[in-house]
């Protein structure tokens, strides 16, 4: 049968600007969160993770912020580059040791 695809929210960013991608998670029992990047035809690629005992974590050009009060997660990408164009997914572990529940994704398009 035919699949009905999700209409992905799209974030258009100019090269060199900062990007902010937002995610609302659903399960208040989640204590582990991950951001993944998925390029066309590839599997999800790990970017950065954060545990619920933290509210901020920084990596190379990326920062993840966690607000447990409103169940909100964000990914900030500094100085966005063309290679950052992809779909970005947040994922939470729910009430589980290993099962990840993925969000719907955000398409990031970097324009020159």
């Amino acid at each position: 049968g035919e699949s009905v695809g999700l209409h992905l929210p799209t974030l258009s960013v100019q090269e060199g600007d900062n990007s902010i991608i937002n995610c609302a998670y659903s399960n208040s029992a989640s204590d582990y969160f991950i951001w993944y990047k998925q390029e066309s035809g590839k599997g999800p690629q790990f970017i950065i993770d954060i545990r619920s005992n933290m509210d901020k974590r920084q990596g190379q050009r990326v920062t993840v912020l966690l607000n447990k009060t409103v169940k909100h997660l964000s990914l900030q990408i500094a100085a966005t580059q063309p290679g950052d164009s992809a779909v970005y997914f947040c994922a939470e572990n729910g009430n589980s040791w290993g099962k990840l529940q993925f969000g719907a994704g955000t398409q990031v398009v970097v324009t020159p």
Partner: protein
Amino acid sequence: EPEVTQTPSHQVTQMGQEVILRCVPISNHLYFYWYRQILGQKVEFLVSFYNNEISEKSEIFDDQFSVERPDGSNFTLKIRSTKLEDSAMYFCASSEVGNQPQHFGDGTRLSIL
């Protein structure tokens, strides 16, 4: 950098046939997973596997599905009698332990005719 590898990259199968998707997880990882992604939709958890047994499975993972670690390196997903709605990308992932980053392969595109 170590990576998860999956074969084949594309599998075309007639409805009702059995299919086996293969994965080689990262060598020092102890937890293994299968996910699927129907075209244009979100990634969905199927099953997790640790210490030679299933740790958790989703509603999607019914009696038609099974997983196996036949040797020290491979991790397989078998669908016994495929249906049209099994058409999807199937991703294998592995992690050192639970609640650590899961690293994904590039998937097998399964097309059921």
